[in-house]
């Protein structure tokens, strides 16, 4: 799961011409640490839903990698 999430995060980073990250850790904040804006977060939800069949933002905002894990 961790690996798949890393691939998704890096695909979003590549799409906005940012360098990929080598690893994710639970403490990372989506906005502050990964530099995701609301459009990137939307892309993240679409891609996670595609991969895992779960809409992580369905019942409230998710702020960190840890919170994504919790939803999955």
């Amino acid at each position, binding site marked *: 799961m961790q690996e798949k999430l890393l691939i998704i995060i890096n*695909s979003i980073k590549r*799409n*906005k011409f940012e360098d990929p990250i080598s690893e994710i850790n639970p403490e990372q904040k989506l906005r502050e640490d990964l530099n995701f804006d*609301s*459009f990137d*977060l*939307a892309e993240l*939800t*679409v891609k996670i839903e595609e991969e895992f069949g779960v809409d992580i*933002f369905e019942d409230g905002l998710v702020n960190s990698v840890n919170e994504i894990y919790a939803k999955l």
Partner: protein
Amino acid sequence: MFFLIDRNVSLSYEEILLHVNHSNFFTDCYIYPDIRSFLLNWIFALVNEKNIALMDSDLSEKEITSNDLKVNRLIKIDHPKKINSVEELVNSIRNSNSEITLFTSGTTGFTRKFTHPLKNLIRKINISDERKNDVWGFAFNPTHVAGVQVFFQAILNQNLLVNVFMESKDFVINAINEYKITNLSSTPTFYRLLLPLDQTFNSVKKITIGGEKSDNYLVSQVVKYFPNARINNVYGSTETGPLFSSQNDEFIVQDKHIGLIKVVEDELYIHKDLFGKTTQLHLIDDFYATGDLVEWIDNEKRRFRFTSRKNELINVGGYKVNPYEVEDELTQHPKIRNVRVFGKPNAVLGNVICCEIELLPDLELKEEEVRFFLNGKIQNFKIPRKITFVEKIDLTRTGKKKIV
């Protein structure tokens, strides 16, 4: 003299005369097995001044019952008109008092019927000796308003129709060459699917584009492969019949139309005097709100351009995105054959812009390359966040892209 070529089936003007002179029955609501039977039934009804509904052969049971249609019942005509010549046939069609019922194409999956007097539907048809030798690539559904235009244009000028509707690219190319097609009339989607070509077609002298929003890039590509063709953009609808035409994507308000066209909150309103008798439309102070969004190009408000459909703008985090604008950019990518842009509900933004891409054969493209291509061309919020590559973009019955 042939009127129709449809793959291995044909129909000559002489056979039409035979049918008209030896039939007693027609069907006013006909689920037709093939285009030849469809046209014969229709022509017979027109000659005998009977009202007829032009039905798609694949209407669902639900669409039939919800529109209260009585399909495939045989109606006897006691003393059908006898016709002696093709000229007489053409004149009796032209002067027929039939009313014709059309159904909206249902790009949104909802079919409604509209009835027009024949005169209303043929008011834009040109009949002249110059057009006698025209050969039409029939690239519209014959049951819909644009196909109806081509049908009348062809039969009233005694032309040949070659059916290429929903056929493959190779089939269309062969048909143009084999029958020396002079006139093509179809949707932007049809031309997009036909391009790029590896030859030019000198026989084609007129190309009509209509039924969906067109764009100048597409026109510039079409001109390249059809060097002798005059390009004509047309605007009309099942609800109003044919309305305007132009040489590019700009439409001009003619003097006689001043006061009959207005724009309210970017939406085009058409006065009822412009589309003749109709009882089914909801009018606001005698104007019909078309649902088509336009922008004025000049300060005098005489030239306008279509931008979108009213209910098709996608709200993304408070921004309004016109899917056609994004499609126009994407179709300029050299590897892309056809695209569809649409919104998908999303918890973060309300909607997220998605696109499906059909590539040209044997080519590959990555998501990030698409994003790179769009970067700087359109604003960030308009860029699709979900990009899928598909074998084929689904088309509706009229050959338009389906709206998701």
